[in-house]
């Protein structure tokens, strides 16, 4: 394909390979006159700009020369790399002169462009060549067998290669060997070629065809083989190219007879030794393989002869040819269309005719419609043989799982015909691991999880932690796995019960002494002063007045002591007043302690005191509000605190066991996406999740969006390091994020877990097959480019639980559309599952009031059974839920996928590493006998949004044992009594009181569950129950007083006052 054109009758020289951009120098030819018969001469430099689609070549400089040229070459001598023009232009002139030009100066327009010139030769200098190894050496040839070797560094005195050959004749070609630097060849029109050894300074071999009809117009050494060269003949009677091997110099090795008339010039590609260009008087430009004689390419040319042809050294696909019609054309041998050429002609036309209205008719010419199909002749085919420079010898490509595919082809193989058969063509698959520390740590984490050695893992982390904060975090995490966690947390916050006791020992002894001295007689004064008034009030049993008086007189202690005697109501009122009055620093703390209002502390404490607030919460908060309080504190730290406090929020979240918040908080505090910082986070998260699963019995698979993102990032990283199995274990199990589902599928398949054969080949993606001629839905979906993607994501938006994503056997037999729906239906069936285990709550015999709470809690134990459960995420995979799965055969469509058969092979094994027996399941988990497979949950049953509902539930502490049966009567009786009272109570205040009492009695039930109450109290309570059954509330109150007076206050304080309120009300209301 023709790329460029210059309208010159000139010799041409490409800039050396090092030169960028590429230039073409032209010097007016001495042998041919151009059409104008002008005798002026010039040296011009053009730039080859391939990004410009036009056929014009950009002229950079023109130098008007005093002589015309027979030969022009551009040597790389003293070239500097970079963008500047350099090297030396060497010209052979008409009068035996050799001229050196500086191309840089020509381009800058300098007038002194000649570096040096010598006219040592006789007659025109037709042959020039630069030595490739020593670029300062230039050989020149002219008439009278003259050959000179010029040293550009010492241009004054040329050398000769030896004694002139006899008879004297013109030297038409000269060429340095391309392998051996001191070998030079020359040839003359007589057909004789001489090879010179410059070390010996004599000709070493003469090559000559016996028939003597060779008329040498071209000579070229083999680029790769030192002993071979070609000679081209200009004689029309023998238009051949002879390939000679100097080892067998008696006759040519091969004769190429592709031209029909004399050959005018040849050029052998330096890059690919199988490409030899030749042009002749038959007006052809051919590219042949001189090693085989095959013609690989015929350039489409006009009918003119070309007298000079050159490969571009830098761009191996480009060549230039100078023709007698006064034109230099630049071609690519890679084929292509000739649109560009035609465009140029059109442009020329329109420029010649002026603007589109050439005839001034006020009417522009209609735009020329170029024929789009001009037939095959306008398409120029490339070389028959791919040139060496486009044959990629080496490659390395990454693939999934950090694998690298590499191949290489050894250099020797690129030489033609050498040991091709022996060559083994291997492709190597390598595992690339770049994050070794990351992998090591990840392995440690997995080991810890697998062996359940959490405490020692945490301890190791504590020991290794470089920073205090990190140490702290791990210490907090560790506590989760230890007994008595709250005390340990306090410990970590710097509060020890024992310490305080020790501090107090001294004061205490002092106090007892004081008490002892107080035991004396005293008189009861009823005087008019405050003392007296109080005495009077006391004597009349009017506690309220007495307390009031005390408060007035600022006798706080007295007031409170009296209020205690005056009953709960008075006490709380007194406390109110006390707090209102007192404004000391710790009042608010005391207030909170007394009122159990931890929210207040958490919400309004100074953030600098977050440790203290957390300590208070740890000490006092009830299990059910503990997590929420920790969260709240964490939230405040995060939103209000400075950067330091923000990170501390992590500790609160750890106490709370709030994984999602921890992730958010940690991510905010940490910068960067480096694998190790992600590892830092994941270690904590995984450990905390384990802890939460053990202590709080939450759904082990529930994963929030942020955590899911982090986990999948982590899994991707692991996968990228080749740990595909590990990546699978960390990938969240039940998330509906499409990218996670896809990653899981990819990981599974990368592990080769699917059976080989048909099933394996049916990807879950295969919703969009492109079979030939399949009509119907597929076609419709493929119509817009967006359609497949949509379909794909739809699928992803509601993905089946990961376990269902590869039911190969199911899908393979179905048309794609059905396969999709079958996935959906499977999903639906899975969704029904969580619904039925709620039944067992009926077996609890709990009073209705508690029923709601129970409902909330139970499902958590029965969260969706997920067929593929990774050991990390689902160590608590309830054995129950798996037992509960209804037998598959009954189920239609999707049921088979529940069979373990379809699980990836590795999974069941992993799971069995966690024998159900060792699972720390809470006792309140309903034993399997209670929850037999029920038809209620069978596949196909109507379902709502069961999964979403259950998952949306907040996680909370729910480890509650049942109340021993013999004591259940206490609960039922008390609750029944409260209900009765509520029914007959009229004023809202009483109702509120009763409601409150109902709630507070929960403390009693808790103690019953834990069986921590002493037998005397228990029997006392049973007595109260009996009296309630007989509706003798007064009797009940008496028993109550007895219990209170005989038992440890701390043991009963949580519920006895409430019970008293209830009994009193019952008595009052007479229910």
């Amino acid at each position, binding site marked *: 394909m023709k790329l460029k054109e210059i309208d010159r009758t000139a010799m041409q020289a490409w800039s050396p390979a090092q030169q960028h951009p590429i230039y073409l120098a032209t010097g007016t030819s001495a042998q041919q006159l151009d059409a104008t018969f002008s005798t002026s001469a010039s040296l011009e430099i053009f730039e080859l700009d391939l990004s410009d689609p036009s056929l014009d070549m950009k002229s950079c400089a023109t130098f008007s020369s005093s002589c015309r040229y027979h030969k022009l070459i551009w040597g790389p001598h003293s070239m500097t790399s970079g963008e500047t023009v350099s090297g030396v232009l060497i010209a052979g002139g008409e009068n035996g002169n050799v001229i050196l030009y500086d191309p840089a100066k020509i381009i800058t327009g300098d007038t002194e462009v000649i570096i040096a010139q010598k006219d040592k030769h006789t007659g025109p200098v037709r042959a020039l060549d630069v030595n490739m190894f020593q670029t300062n050496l230039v050989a020149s040839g002219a008439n009278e067998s003259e050959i000179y070797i010029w040293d550009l560094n010492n241009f004054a005195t040329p050398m000769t290669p030896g004694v002139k050959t006899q008879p004297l004749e013109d030297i038409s070609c000269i060429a340095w060997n391309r392998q051996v630097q001191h070998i030079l060849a020359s040839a003359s029109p007589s057909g004789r070629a001489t090879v010179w050894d410059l070390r010996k300074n004599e000709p070493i071999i003469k090559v000559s065809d016996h028939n003597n009809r060779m008329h040498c117009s071209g000579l070229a050494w083999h680029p790769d083989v030192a002993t071979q060269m070609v000679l081209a003949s200009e004689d029309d009677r023998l238009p051949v190219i002879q390939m000679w091997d100097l080892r067998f110099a008696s006759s040519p090795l091969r004769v190429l007879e592709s031209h029909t008339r004399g050959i005018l010039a040849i050029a052998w590609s330096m890059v690919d030794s199988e490409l030899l260009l030749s042009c002749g008087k038959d007006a052809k430009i051919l590219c042949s393989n001189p090693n085989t004689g095959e013609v690989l390419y015929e350039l489409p040319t006009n009918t003119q002869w070309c007298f000079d042809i050159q490969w571009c050294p830098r761009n191996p696909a480009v060549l230039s040819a100078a023709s007698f019609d006064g034109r230099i054309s630049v071609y690519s041998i890679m084929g292509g269309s000739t649109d560009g050429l035609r465009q140029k002609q059109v442009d020329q036309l329109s420029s010649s005719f002026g603007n589109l209205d050439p005839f001034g008719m006020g009417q522009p010419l209609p735009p020329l419609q170029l024929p789009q199909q001009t037939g095959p002749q306008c398409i120029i085919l490339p070389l028959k043989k791919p040139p060496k420079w486009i044959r990629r010898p080496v490659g390395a490509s990454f*693939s999934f799982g950090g694998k690298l595919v590499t191949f290489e082809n050894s250099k020797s193989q690129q030489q033609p015909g050498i040991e091709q058969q022996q060559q083994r063509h291997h492709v190597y698959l390598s595992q690339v691991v770049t994050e070794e520390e990351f992998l090591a740590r990840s392995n440690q984490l997995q080991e810890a999880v697998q062996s359940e050695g959490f405490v020692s893992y945490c301890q190791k982390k504590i020991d290794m932690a470089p920073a205090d904060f990190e140490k702290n975090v791990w210490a907090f995490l560790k506590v989760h796995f230890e007994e008595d966690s709250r005390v340990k947390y306090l410990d970590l916050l710097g509060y020890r019960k024992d310490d305080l006791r020790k501090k107090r020992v001294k004061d205490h002894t002092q106090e007892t002494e004081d008490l002892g001295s107080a035991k004396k007689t005293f008189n009861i004064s009823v005087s008019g002063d405050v003392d007296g008034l109080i005495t009077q009030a006391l004597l009349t049993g009017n506690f309220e007045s007495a307390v009031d008086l005390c408060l007035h007189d600022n006798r706080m202690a007295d007031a409170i002591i009296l209020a205690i005697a005056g009953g709960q109501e008075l006490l709380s009122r007194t406390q109110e007043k006390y707090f209102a009055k007192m404004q000391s620093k710790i009042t608010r703390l005391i207030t909170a302690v007394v009122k159990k209002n931890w929210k207040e502390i958490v919400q309004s404490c100074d953030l600098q005191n977050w440790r203290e607030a957390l300590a208070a919460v740890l000490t006092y908060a009830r299990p059910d509000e503990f997590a929420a309080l920790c969260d709240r504190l964490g939230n405040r730290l995060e939103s209000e605190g400075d950067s330091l406090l923000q990170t501390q929020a992590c500790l609160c979240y750890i106490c709370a066991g709030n994984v999602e918040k921890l992730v958010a908080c940690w991510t905010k505090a940490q910068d960067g996406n480096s694998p190790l910082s992600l590892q830092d986070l994941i270690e904590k998260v995984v450990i905390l999740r384990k802890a939460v699963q053990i202590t709080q019995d939450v759904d082990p698979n529930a994963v929030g969006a942020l955590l899911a993102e982090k986990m999948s990032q982590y899994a991707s990283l692991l996968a990228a390091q080749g740990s595909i199995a590990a990546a699978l274990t960390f990938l969240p199990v039940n998330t509906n994020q499409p990218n996670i589902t896809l990653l899981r599928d990819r990981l599974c398949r990368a592990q080769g877990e699917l059976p080989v054969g048909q099933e394996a080949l049916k990807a879950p993606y295969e919703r969009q097959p492109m079979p030939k001629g399949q009509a119907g839905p597929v076609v419709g979906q493929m119509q817009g480019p967006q359609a497949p993607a949509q379909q794909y994501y739809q699928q992803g938006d509601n993905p089946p639980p990961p376990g269902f994503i590869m039911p190969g056997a199911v899908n393979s037999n179905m048309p794609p559309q059905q396969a999709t729906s079958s996935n959906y239906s499977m999903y639906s069936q899975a969704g029904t599952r969580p619904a039925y285990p709620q039944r067992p709550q009926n077996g609890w015999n709990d009073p209705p009031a508690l029923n709601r709470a129970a409902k909330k809690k139970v499902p958590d134990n029965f969260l969706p059974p997920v067929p593929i459960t990774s050991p990390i995420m689902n160590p608590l995979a309830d054995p129950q839920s798996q037992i509960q799965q209804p037998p598959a055969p009954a189920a239609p469509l999707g049921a088979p996928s529940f069979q373990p058969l379809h699980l990836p092979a590795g999974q069941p094994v992993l799971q069995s590493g966690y024998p159900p027996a060792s699972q720390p399941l809470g006792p309140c988990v309903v034993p399997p006998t209670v929850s037999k497979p029920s038809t209620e949950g069978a596949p196909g049953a109507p379902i709502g949004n069961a999964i979403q509902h259950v998952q949306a539930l907040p996680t909370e502490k729910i480890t509650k044992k049942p109340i021993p049966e013999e004591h259940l009567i206490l609960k039922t009786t008390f609750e029944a009594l409260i209900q009765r009272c509520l029914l007959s109570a009229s004023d809202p205040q009483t109702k509120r009181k009763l409601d409150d009492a109902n709630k507070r009695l929960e403390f009693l039930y808790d103690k019953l569950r834990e069986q921590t109450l002493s037998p005397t109290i228990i029997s006392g309570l049973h007595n109260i129950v009996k009296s309630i059954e007989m509706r003798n509330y007064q009797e009940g109150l008496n028993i109550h007083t007895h219990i209170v007076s005989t038992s440890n206050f701390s043991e009963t304080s949580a519920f006895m006052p409430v019970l008293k309120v209830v009994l009193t009300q019952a008595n009052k209301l007479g229910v």
Partner: protein
Amino acid sequence: QVSVINTVDTSHEDMIHDAQMDYYGTRLATCSSDRSVKIFDVRNGGQILIADLRGHEGPVWQVAWAHPMYGNILASCSYDRKVIIWKEENGTWEKTYEYTGHDSSVNSVCWAPHDYGLILACGSSDGAISLLSYTGDGQWEVKKISNAHTIGCNAVSWAPAVVPGSLIEQPSGQKPNYIKRFASGGCDNLVKIWKEEDGQWKEEQKLEAHSDWVRDVAWAPSIGLPTSTIASCSQDGRVFIWTCDDASGNSWSPKLLHKFNDVVWHVSWSITANILAVSGGDNKVTLWKESVDGLWACISDVNKGQGGVSAITEGQQNEQ
């Protein structure tokens, strides 16, 4: 760091020009100057020849796997000016489509992100780039960019599917409005970025830095960051990393990764886009990683034959 886990004897009778793993990394496709394309199952260190695909009449330069959501599909391109799309049907591989619209060697094929549908970009020595889109029912629609790179396009590589505005994640349910882009490199020493506007492909950017043929371009996978990255390598031995931070995609800046002593033929990003494998520079494969301060360092030098790897020493690096 790099260890050979499987050596596959392809039994190709001539030079191998490309080897690509499928989406899952379980199957290997190779192509060769012997005009064949071969597919191997390489799971668990095995090497089972699944298919030996004949159909090209010249050396096969590149192979490319389509995303598995479309089935098992492989594209190959050859010096014979053809692009062939092969598909596995009932366990056997067959030619499903042959594209003959180029006038010269087809040097590169690359499938678009699966989100766009089944679209293949092909770069040819005739200077044109073709885009083949599957329209269903065995039909392919062809769009051609003529004279994309004068005297030849050597490589094409698609940009990851990213929705403008929300580079991290697009809201589900909404119809994603992708901007389709790809990069190409050619014999005009340029890397070009093409963008589809109203169904037409337009040259959006022309990246100039190389001083010789661009041998390969590789658009880095998206890892959720707003930066786009392209690696390009060239006949001139240079490897450039181009980055563009602005969403409009207009300001690309090059950074020289390294100047090798020889042609660099191929660049390939790891899936996580943090490692670049560079092939060439005297038939070697080197792995490069960007450090925190933005400098690229060679992290290893893959010696395939020995199965071992030698970390490049400081001295060796300087030599290069």
